[in-house]
């Protein structure tokens, strides 16, 4: 392993940079898995250690941070947080439940579709945080167990998030690192998601159909909901929807506009903040802005910062290049085998591990395969394999994705806990089905 030139100062005690970077990375990863210490603390500690031990200097470490990913995430978090205050998510959820005459099966399908669409266009975690409370209310009124609905929304949020550049953090990271556009994801991932989602929902309905019944009286209670009353701030709603539409248009046109997605998201956030605060003065404005920024998931953002630095340490010390060579050797240098191995490997690992550090590690690894497989353009199927595996794999277990944990936490607080093993039994097979569909899609379309 030969360290890349330029980045690494002398390593403490003359240790091998690659060995230090690997030990720090594996230790942090192991500690993240134990869930004893918050992952942002661990990632920042790991990043700090790499600098203190001389694997990277501060300048090099900052070079490893993908500010496009951070900006896109932060901008969308602020936009969605402000939009959520208008009540639009509750409006859509109630409207969709009434559209199917409050029939339990129809509600399961509609709320899942709503979750998938919101997750594709917004942030997964925020989407489920806004849809799940309404779901609990509806199931409460229908005197139904919320479990099938909550699980279905978890699955839908991860499947929906797979469809677009901004839907799931792995896609944001891949898109940013490789320079893929919003339209690239629409063209290459949305079609397979449109197949996976209905199949997933059909299987869920088949599994739980006997439990999905409600009395006419209970259904009437839901039908009496007045969704218009859910809109708490019509002016904010108009402003937020306008900004969201502009931001989405910006994403679609960002290549033509020569703008990075982070610029579009951050500018959209700033614009919405301005509109939401124009009529406020003094302390009220300060409080409102403070609240909007506080809504962002800073733990996730700082986790990303630490992680990017650690992965950059692996990259500059030559570990990633070495791993890529090994992976190519294992797959016999066969492109098709490599693509399929990435798809299934990402899915299985992402089901049990956090898919964000996994994808952060895989990105430079796949990039360094370019010379073997005929250049960067030839790697495209590998990126789609990684995105599908990492995003859909998150559905396999309760700890596979952030949205899963958020829903589980909410359900627990509301007295309807979702346990690891029952979830695994219901959903791991469904995840495998979605990966099998992706396998066929990748082979037929690209290999």
């Amino acid at each position: 392993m030969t360290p890349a030139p330029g980045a690494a100062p002398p390593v403490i005690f003359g240790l091998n940079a690659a060995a230090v970077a690997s030990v720090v990375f594996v230790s942090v990863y192991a500690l993240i898995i134990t869930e004893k210490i918050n992952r942002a603390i661990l990632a920042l500690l790991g990043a700090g250690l790499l600098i203190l031990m001389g694997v990277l200097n501060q300048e090099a470490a900052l070079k490893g941070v993908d500010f496009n990913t951070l900006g896109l995430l932060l901008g969308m978090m602020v936009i969605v947080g402000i939009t959520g205050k208008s009540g639009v998510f509750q409006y859509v959820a109630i409207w969709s439940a009434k559209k199917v005459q409050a029939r339990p099966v129809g509600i399961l399908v509609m709320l899942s579709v709503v979750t998938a669409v919101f997750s594709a266009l917004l942030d997964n975690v925020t989407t489920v945080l806004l849809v799940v409370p309404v779901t609990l209310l509806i199931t409460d009124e229908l005197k139904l167990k919320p479990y099938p609905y909550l699980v279905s929304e978890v699955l839908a949020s991860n499947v929906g998030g797979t469809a677009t550049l901004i839907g799931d953090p792995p896609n944001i990271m891949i898109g940013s690192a490789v320079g893929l556009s919003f339209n690239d994801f629409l063209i290459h991932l949305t079609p397979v998601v449109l197949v996976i989602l209905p199949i997933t929902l059909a299987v869920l309905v088949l599994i739980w159909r006997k439990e999905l019944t409600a009395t006419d009286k209970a259904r009437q209670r839901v039908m009496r909901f007045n969704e218009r009353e859910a809109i708490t701030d019509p002016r904010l709603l108009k402003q937020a929807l306008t900004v969201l539409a502009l931001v989405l248009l910006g994403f679609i046109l960002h290549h033509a506009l020569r703008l990075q997605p982070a610029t579009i998201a951050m500018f959209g956030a700033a614009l919405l903040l301005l509109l939401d605060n124009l009529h406020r003065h003094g302390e009220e404005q300060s409080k409102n802005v403070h609240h909007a920024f506080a809504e962002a998931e800073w733990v996730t953002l700082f986790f990303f910062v630490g992680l990017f630095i650690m992965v950059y340490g692996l990259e500059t010390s030559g570990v990633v290049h070495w791993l890529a060579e090994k992976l190519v050797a294992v797959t016999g240098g066969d492109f098709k085998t490599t693509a399929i191995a990435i798809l299934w490997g990402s899915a299985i690992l992402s089901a049990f591990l956090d898919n964000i550090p996994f994808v952060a590690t895989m990105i430079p690894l796949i990039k360094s395969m370019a010379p073997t497989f005929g250049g960067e353009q030839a790697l495209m199927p590998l990126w789609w394999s990684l995105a599908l595996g990492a995003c859909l794999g998150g559905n396999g277990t309760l700890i596979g994705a952030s949205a899963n944990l958020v829903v589980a936490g909410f359900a627990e607080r509301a007295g309807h806990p979702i346990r690891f093993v029952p979830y695994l039994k219901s959903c791991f097979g469904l995840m495998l089905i979605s990966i099998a569909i992706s396998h066929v899609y990748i082979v037929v379309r690209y290999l």
Partner: protein
Amino acid sequence: MTVATILNPAPYTVNADDHLLEVVRITLEKRFRSLPVVDGEGRYRGMVSLHGILGLLLPTAATVDHGLADLAFVADTLDDLKEVLQGFVEHRVSDHMDPGVKPVHPETSIVEATLLMFRTGENLPVVDRSTGRLVGLISPWEVLGKLV
């Protein structure tokens, strides 16, 4: 000056095994806001309050942390709420009391007790440190009654 000098030494109490709806009736009849709950030996167990009972009428989706911010779109009638309350007919006080209301002690300063009442908006049980027995209750009436 300490809580011991102004506490109500004989507050109305309820037993953890009492029926919840009976306690609701008493609370309404005597215009209490909250009542201390004790066990058979007079040891403090928690507080049962009208605020907590109001929470029982609401869907969990709204009362849980990060739940629904408002329920303006729900059109449930008084009869619907009555039906919800009847669902608790077999429940005991112990099922719905708040054991998290921290008591003060006879030797607690009045200013500290006033601060706690201000922060929680609740009457405070006064408990003997060594036995855990309820020895009284302190409310805004006890404090302000000594001043005005």
